[in-house]
């Protein structure tokens, strides 16, 4: 006996879509209700764009958003309610991005990434590390993570998705998620240390 059941609508959603919960919208989507697809898009596309833009190039982010919703449309009937709808969409997006990375092997070194990031606006005192500098290093370090570590770190830390849900969305065990998260932090620290050795940075 499960504590959460999958919801399948019998009747077309006759009320206004804003009356419906996220899960009810997914149920309606599973039945081919395009109003539900539009409503889900309106509810989550900004979050999804933000999430995806941390995993992939900005230029690709909208493409991934679109692909995510198309995939959600295809697989809505399989949504089991084990996570929130937002996390479910994040999981779909992470999978799509991961596949893209596999195809392109686009992982960059942090130095390469840093070269593309804008320099801090203000000149820095010689002995102080500003928050802006820290952000530059960290942004470059995040971008240089392997896809698996990156999606885990972004999902759990930046998007603050609970571990159990995140693990489900990524299709891994919770223990693996925590291990990945720990590895990601170690990798970030190592990269940040390397970047600080670079005299020009």
């Amino acid at each position, binding site marked *: *006996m499960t504590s*959460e059941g999958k919801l399948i609508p019998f009747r077309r959603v006759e009320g206004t879509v804003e009356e419906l919960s996220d899960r009810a919208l997914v149920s309606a989507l599973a039945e081919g209700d395009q109003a539900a697809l539009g409503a889900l898009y309106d509810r989550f596309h*900004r979050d999804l764009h933000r999430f995806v833009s941390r995993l992939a190039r900005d230029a690709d982010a909208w493409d991934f958003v679109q692909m995510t919703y198309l995939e959600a449309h295809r697989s809505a009937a399989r949504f089991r309610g084990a996570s929130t709808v937002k996390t479910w969409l994040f999981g779909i997006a992470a999978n799509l991005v991961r596949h893209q990375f596999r195809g392109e092997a686009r992982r960059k070194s942090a130095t390469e990434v840093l070269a593309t990031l804008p320099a801090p606006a203000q000149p820095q005192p010689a002995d102080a590390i500003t928050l802006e500098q820290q*952000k530059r290093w960290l942004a470059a370090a995040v971008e240089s993570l392997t896809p698996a570590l990156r999606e885990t770190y972004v999902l759990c830390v930046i998007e603050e998705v609970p571990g159990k849900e995140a693990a489900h969305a990524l299709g891994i065990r919770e223990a693996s998620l925590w291990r990945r998260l720990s590895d990601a932090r170690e990798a970030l620290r190592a990269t940040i240390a390397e970047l600080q050795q670079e005299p020009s940075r």
Partner: protein
Amino acid sequence: MTAWQPDDHELDAVARSLPAAEAERSRGEEIRTSLLASAAGRAQLPRRSRVPVIAISIAAAAAVVGVLWLTSLRGSSPATTLGSGAPVAVAGKRQFIGKIGNATFQRVSDWPDFVVHLDDGRLAIEVATVGPDERFRVITSDAEVEVRGTKFEVAATHGLIAEVVVREGTVEVRADRKVVILHAGETWTAPRTASRDMIELHPTQVASVDSSGTGPSTTDPRATSSHVGTNHATTTHATTPHVGTSHATTETRAPTTATDVHATDAHATDAHATDAHATDARAPPADTKPIPSVATAPKPGEDEFRAGWTALRNGDPAAASKLFTTACGKAHDDAIGEDACFWAGAAAKRANDTATARATLARFLDRFPSSARAPEAAALLGWILYDAHDLDAAEKQFHKAEHDRVPKVRDSALKGLEAIARSRAN
């Protein structure tokens, strides 16, 4: 320079402060339109190309289950259904249906699409976890409840749903044009309506259809559906005119766009087919009317609606508007009608046919004032009226949309109100 060696906490805190890419609104709208157009195209295709494979697999599995189940029934009382003299509980390996007091119900079909039709009384139900291609449903003439893996009670009065109590898990109740999600411990009670009150004043005779031992004599898993479907038609005939599992399924699955009508899953069509051809000792009397086979027939206006979408996707909004207008005229006040009437106006506006757009959107708002699309239509109409310098009428329309939850609609309405204020100030 002092090295920065953040601990986990500091690292994560800085990470959360990293700026995110701004979601460009115009691109977002573009993606939305493209997405919905793709989805409409997808919905026109046969929905499940794997259906034959799945159906064969399910049929094979169900045949085995059916044989085992029949074997287990032989030694027990006539189990499955119903009437006040029926057994207190109907237990299967995967479900338990217990009557609470007197209840009139019948099992309409077995797994993989287990359907129980409840006429009167209250049932306590437990359902074990079911597979992704399986369903468990309880239907009354006016509502349907579907769950996967839960315990709940459902009560009905003279064919109309009365109450749902959830013990474990989550249940979605769709009735009376509303969707209600119930979690464990929650109860939903049907609102009182005039028809409900009339029924309570003049209760109909509920036919007691003995489908005990509904197990088919063959191992064809559809046979159960066939036999009981026929009996169910008899019951339907005697109680409420439009009850019927397959009919209800078809009728209530109309999507927002018409394109899904043919996508109604195989169960409905199969059920009609088996209803129509059922021959058995328990066959209905001669005057029993078969349930009309509406699953495969396009709804009024559906063809034009689809053609309208095709025209719109092909960049011909003028043609699309005409087709949507035809669909709007033909369709009933259902999903197709609602969408067609809206898109008739929206497409006309896109085609710069302002007069048609104005009239069509106004008609849409009159006909579907509570539609989810009403605020969007009002905003569109508001701008048309604004351009025609009818500021008072435009303001009225913008006010209808200014609190809409969809940002683009709300923003459009607010901009319209600002524009009106500026115009008046000048």
